[in-house]
């Protein structure tokens, strides 16, 4: 993954993951697999895991342990009301940024 992509993703990955979790509880492996299918092909599973630990700590998701066929129980993450509020703010912020940057690009032409 390019350096610029890594840096930009840092600020947005939380919002991306929370958006994916909306109405769709999932565990770490599923989230990573989905991100890869969306073109973030080189995203590390550990990066997603660290993010999940963080959003759990920050009270944005609820976690439920479910037994799995192989290996230890899986932690399934679902968006809670704190996460919904965070996501709403994320989209507002993103809208602002995207609009400002688009203006900057067209003014520069």
């Amino acid at each position, binding site marked *: 993954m390019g350096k610029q992509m890594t840096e930009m993703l840092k600020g947005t990955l939380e919002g991306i993951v929370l958006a994916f979790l909306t109405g769709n509880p999932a565990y770490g*492996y599923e989230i990573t697999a989905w991100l890869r299918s969306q073109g973030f092909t080189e995203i*590390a*599973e*550990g990066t997603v895991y660290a993010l999940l*630990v963080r959003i759990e700590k920050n009270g944005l998701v609820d976690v439920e342990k479910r037994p799995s066929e192989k290996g230890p129980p899986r932690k399934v993450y679902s968006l809670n009301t704190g996460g919904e509020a965070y996501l709403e703010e994320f989209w507002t912020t993103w809208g602002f940024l995207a609009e400002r940057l688009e203006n900057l690009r067209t003014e520069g032409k």
Partner: protein
Amino acid sequence: MSVRSMLETVIGGFDQKRRWRAYKARKRQLPESQKSAVGAIERYLMYAGGIADGEIATKMLEDLIDLFEQSAADGTTVDAIVGDDPVEFAEEFARNYSEGSWINKERNRLTDAIEAIDDKEGDS
């Protein structure tokens, strides 16, 4: 100071010792490459993480082993877990436990000092 003696200083208390032993036992059960990776990351976290709180250090290692056990069960390679930049991964992982780090005290001290100045400036 060796990592072992650092850990023994940090991880006191009966419950923490029990959890630390459980962590080591879980590490031994991992496939060879996963085990080596956990060992290397653990070493880095203990040296560079600066976690002075044994409870938080223990929780950090338990979260680390959760990740590698689950990934081993899914057949994920170490490379896919850690990514291109192992240091970046370890740093980001460690940030989740920064409330237990010695530097955190200094961060709070700096924040308080600047806030006190702000308050004074607000008065004048």
